[in-house]
């Protein structure tokens, strides 16, 4: 994804992209997560969280600062997406 049109990000599309990334690189093929699944309950650990943050950095052009890594922003793929869209608006 280009980082040029961040102000027009579609939350649904971003949630789908984050979910796809998690399913492709972190989850077992037989246990995919959905956008509203609790990621910690699904088995994501510290290292997996960092992988998601690196994905966001690579695809949306910014690093989520430590103080923003609160439950409301990282509990689900959709929560990540909402944060990314807010941050990019």
């Amino acid at each position, binding site marked *: 994804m280009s980082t040029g049109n961040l102000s027009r990000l579609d939350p649904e599309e971003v949630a789908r992209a984050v979910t796809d990334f998690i399913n492709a690189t*972190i*989850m*077992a*093929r*037989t*246990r995919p*997560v959905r956008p509203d699944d609790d990621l*910690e309950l*699904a*088995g*994501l*650990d*510290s*290292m*997996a*969280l*960092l*992988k998601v*943050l*690196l994905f966001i950095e690579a695809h949306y052009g910014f690093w989520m600062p*430590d*103080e923003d*890594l*609160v*439950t409301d*922003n*990282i509990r689900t793929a959709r929560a990540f997406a909402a944060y990314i869209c807010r941050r990019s608006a």
Partner: protein
Amino acid sequence: MSTQRVRRLPLRGADLVLVAMQALWKREGVSNNTLMAVQCDGPLDPARIRRALHCLLDYCPWPAARLRRRLPWGQLHWAAGPRAALATPPIRHKRLGPLEALHAELEAELNLAIDPRREPPLRVAILDSASDAAGPQSTIVVTWFHPLMDPRGGQNLLAHLSHLDEADGRAPWGDSPPVFVTEPDPRPLKERGRLGRSSQRYMRTLVPEAPVSPGTGLTAPGRVRFEQASFIGDDHGLGGVHSTREICWRLALVGRTMADLWRRRGLPDLRFLVPVSVDLRPKGEPGATFGNVLGFHFARFKPSETADVDRLALALRHQMTDALRDGQIDANAVAMEFLKYRPLSLMLRDLPGMATRETFSFNCADLGDFPPALEKLFGRRVVNAYHAPSVLPRPGIGVFFNRCGIKNNLVVSWIEGAMQIEEVKRIIEAIREGMGWRTAR
């Protein structure tokens, strides 16, 4: 399943490192055992466990394998003959009396070193005990030669045995038996070679000087000891600046307690070097059982940097992020795979500090949640479960976290001579306080 040929499972990755590190202490006869203790709420029937283990060998020979190397320069591997030649690993049943006797039995299990060249790489003990408060209990103790499997593998083994027990010994997996071992890395040799070399270069830059540990200078190591304590208390979840659930935060806290030990002993303010294991299994399903499915990140920080745990945890998180961004954790896993092409004596050459037989400053790991699917085992409810690995004389101490239900378990393993029991108790109390936990009844 029947086969007449010898099956072979090459040792890979961290398994090879463990064998090579233990070989440094061959003359001292240091144990490379690790154990998993699972306490159940009533007496267990050893015959059921024996039957399940016997049945597992029909599908998976590795619990009955032997460690082999066909030529001095050949690959180390697990070798298992045809099914008819496989003997079920030993299962011991013992009535202990009071619960307090359990700990001595567990320490004896750790110290009775398994020689996987001559005996099965794992054994099982059923230890019955009783306490006024909890009534009769049984503890399943699975002890294995550490390079056979990692802690998650041990839990998977128990899950397979439980599954076979529930199915009364019949094949419970239908046409798709579980994955018992990891598939080899499918990437081309050239690409893996490039990654391996980049990891070698990276390892050489990790620390400018050999690390110091509580075991530094120890030439006549004593027995393996451990203390285990269970605590209750909520963790702060992933993310944020005070995430007590994250390994970086826990490592920072353990680092602070170690810095206190360093101060008391007058050890130099050299950088700690601590391996942080990374489970390479995909999340959401058990994954492989046998073989070590771990990559490693190497955390570095000075004792003098540990006063502010939150701040250090963030620094360690950034360090881990950089390693992940640069591909060093993946490269580390690949580099360790390449060790199989080297003689044992040369395997450790690339690890920092090896010239002086120093390895790491201390060990620290969070082994995660005991699988909720194992809340019942062989007809009994699981009350608690934890792992107690032996540590090598250098570093001489390891701190291990895990959770079982609402219990947070803390295990400190050490080598007599490297640590005193009072020092270990001080470390446990400091970690309990730092985590904000209270003692579980």
